[in-house]
């Protein structure tokens, strides 16, 4: 039980002591990515090895000089997910980063690096022929600035004590004992923090609006729906540092006079739900959540709601409707969420990353936060770096960092030496940036000038094997499917746009279709009720603007330069390779292939339906797709 400030201070001091007493800590990445790569088994293996080794303890017991004190910990995402399972061996200030750790490696790591002082070269991170030992030296990590992700990879994501040892709850302490609620709102306002969920609305202004409502029952809601398909920043924070998110929400509750906080978590994130539930239970058992927190009279209760697979529930009013147990449909505004949100009460609704920024701002002050990032967008932003890039993973960089720095310095360039074509920002509500925008600073204002948005932070890198027209069709089909159907422009308009896009990739488009798409887009953008509809046409508009020639090629030349669109593929038999076995002719579902046995066969392009069956099954690789 922690009932007052003194007891919290004592708990922090003892947590800090305890963490210092470890001789070695084995930090196993337990983010969704690494768990998928098998890190849970690696964790269990280390627990087994450590437990079985005499003279080694695995507990939080006081230090015994005859024994080495070891800890095996589960951390949040260590960053380079593609190289998982990741493991860090920490001895005091010295940390060694291992990658792709298999169960078979654990014993060796234990003997060489944990008990001994040897580094296993084969497991180190390598780039351009250089091996890196410490995580902070790896270019992928060295070039980042981590505020929200500070603890990920350093502390046990499940342990309250480790969160304290890393400075956890000092911000809440400061807020509760040294600041009035109005001071807190002011500090956030001055920091220039803007919402990280996509819109970039100033957080301080939102809090002020809630704080000045007459109604005194208010709510704090966290948007953890992370709907952008191809983004996992918020999930990584919820599972990697759940206490920080909760601390941020508690501070918001204090600042805005709310006693109840709700986190709405995306359905596909079971790990986030589990870690948050665990953290809430830990806090409740210590009186750090509930009634009269730290003896200050501040009450705060946390609740978790799981999404049920509707993208539109990421929209504020749909999200609160869903928490209330209704269909998650957006409603007409005003009234706005700050006046009438959850259960018609004033509600602070912010994104996961927004709340996770709060503790550090309170602790270090708004001036510090403003010193990072750009004039219009202070602080850092997390991005998930995916697609055709060398180092996929989770990063955090100051606002205003350029794409070039992110893709080439941090991401290590394109995968398999591919050529950069574009990067999609803002997911299905955003657009693409190309080669000529590589040096544009990424912040809320600048990116808008190029027809896209920062969005929540998904960066999907595309190389010349990606067809931009097909990608636009892909996003259109996503938003069309996710349209809730409440208003006609979105429901019918997205359907019409999708039909046209499908026609184009099927090789049946007309040049007028490009104009039709633009007309429909303008209509939907200006008349749809919520952000889903308003932004649904953006990926199409943005690709038309940047890659009009590809649209024209599909329509006029029936050509897909990335060789992605099935209907554009011209299957050809190479007469020099074909042995005339006749297998392809038998397999072709439409009888497009003919020939005489033991002589080269030929494909009739007017009959071929581009199914690919012949190419897949030719034993002599004689069939290819013509450029």
């Amino acid at each position, binding site marked *: 039980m922690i009932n007052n400030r003194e007891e919290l201070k004592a708990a922090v001091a003892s947590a800090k002591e305890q963490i210092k007493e470890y001789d070695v800590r084995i930090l196993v990445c337990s983010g*969704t*990515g690494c*768990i*998928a*790569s098998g890190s849970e088994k690696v964790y269990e293996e280390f627990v087994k090895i450590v437990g079985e080794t005499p003279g080694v303890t695995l507990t939080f017991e006081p230090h015994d000089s005859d024994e080495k004190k070891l800890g095996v910990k589960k951390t949040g995402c260590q960053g*380079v*997910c*593609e190289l*998982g399972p990741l493991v860090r061996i920490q001895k005091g200030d010295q940390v060694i980063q291992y990658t792709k750790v298999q169960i078979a490696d654990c014993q060796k790591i234990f003997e060489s690096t944990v008990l001994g002082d040897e580094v296993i070269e084969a497991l180190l991170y390598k780039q351009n022929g250089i091996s890196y030992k410490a995580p902070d030296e790896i270019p992928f990590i060295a070039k980042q600035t981590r505020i929200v992700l500070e603890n990920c990879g350093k502390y046990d994501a499940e342990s309250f004590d480790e969160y304290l040892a890393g400075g956890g709850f000092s911000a809440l302490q400061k807020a509760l004992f040294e600041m009035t609620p109005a001071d807190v709102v002011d500090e956030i306002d001055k920091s220039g923090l803007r919402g990280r969920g996509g819109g970039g609305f100033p957080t301080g202004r939102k809090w002020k609006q809630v704080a000045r409502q007459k109604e005194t029952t208010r709510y704090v809601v966290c948007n953890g729906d*992370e709907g*952008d*398909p*191809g*983004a*996992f920043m918020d*999930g*990584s924070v919820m599972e990697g540092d759940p206490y920080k998110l909760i601390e941020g929400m508690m501070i918001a509750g204090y600042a805005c006079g709310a006693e109840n906080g709700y986190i709405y978590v*995306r*359905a*596909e*994130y*079971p790990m*986030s739900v589990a870690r948050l539930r665990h953290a809430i239970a830990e806090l409740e058992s210590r009186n750090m959540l509930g009634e009269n927190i730290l003896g200050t009279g501040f009450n705060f209760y946390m609740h978790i*709601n*799981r999404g*049920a*697979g*509707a*993208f539109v529930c990421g929209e504020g009013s749909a999200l609160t409707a*869903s*928490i*209330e*147990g*209704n*269909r*998650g*449909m957006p409603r007409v505004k005003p009234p706005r969420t700050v006046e009438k949100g959850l259960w018609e009460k004033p509600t602070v609704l912010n994104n996961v990353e927004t709340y996770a920024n709060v503790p550090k701002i309170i602790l270090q002050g708004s001036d510090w936060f403003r010193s990072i990032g750009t004039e219009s967008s202070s602080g850092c932003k997390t991005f*998930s*770096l*995916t*697609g*055709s890039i060398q180092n*996929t*993973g*989770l990063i955090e960089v100051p606002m205003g960092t350029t794409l070039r720095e992110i893709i080439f310095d941090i991401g290590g360039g394109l995968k398999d030496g591919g050529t950069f074509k574009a990067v*999609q920002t803002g*997911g*299905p509500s955003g657009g693409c940036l190309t080669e000529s925008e590589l040096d544009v600073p990424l912040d809320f204002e600048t990116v808008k000038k190029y027809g896209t948005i920062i969005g929540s932070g*998904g960066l*999907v890198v*595309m190389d010349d094997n*990606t067809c931009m027209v097909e*990608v636009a069709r*892909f*996003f259109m089909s*996503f938003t069309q499917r996710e349209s*809730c159907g409440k208003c006609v422009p979105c429901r019918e308009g997205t359907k019409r746009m999708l039909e046209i896009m499908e026609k184009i990739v099927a090789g049946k488009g007309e040049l007028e279709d490009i104009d039709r798409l633009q007309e429909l887009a303008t209509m939907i953008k200006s008349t749809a009720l919520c952000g889903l509809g308003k932004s649904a046409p953006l990926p199409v508009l943005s690709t038309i603007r940047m890659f009009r020639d590809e649209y024209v090629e599909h329509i006029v030349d029936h050509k897909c330069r990335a060789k992605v669109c099935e209907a554009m593929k011209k299957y050809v038999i190479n007469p020099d390779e074909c042995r005339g076995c006749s297998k392809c002719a038998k397999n072709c579902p439409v009888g497009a292939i003919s020939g005489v046995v033991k002589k080269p066969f030929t494909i009739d392009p007017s009959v071929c339906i581009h199914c690919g069956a012949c190419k897949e099954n030719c034993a002599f690789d004689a069939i290819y797709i013509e450029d």
Partner: protein
Amino acid sequence: MLDQSYYTKTDEIIAVYGKKPASLIPIMQDIQGVYRYLPGELLTYVAEQIGITEAKAYSVATFYENFSFEPKGKYVIKVCDGTACHVRKSAPILDTFTKELGLSKKKHTTDDMMFTVETVSCLGACGLAPTVMVNEDVHPKMTPEKAQELIKELRG
């Protein structure tokens, strides 16, 4: 007709969230968590217990993609078709599962009730694209070959 055990279990779940309208979604989620689908009779029962109309309960349940009134297979295979997975070629993986298991765009569950194949738009492991989730386990860096192996493995 469902046997009594279904109702006993449902009562337990209702008790966790309380008899109030706002509990509808979490209750349905937990029922589906246990039975892998939402039996219609139970939904009617839940509506009555938490004080909402049956029509309301159905209108909510049908709004959300995750609720299913059809029983699902023992293994629910969700093939990710989020952006990151899409550009790293998730389509052939879905094709492999569908073909190997004799399913189609309309038929999602095998007759022996072993497999259900669905798509999902991001599992949060985009760094390891393309991905597939089987029940709650994420499988990274999938290929059509790995998909075939996975089916074999699950068949046991």
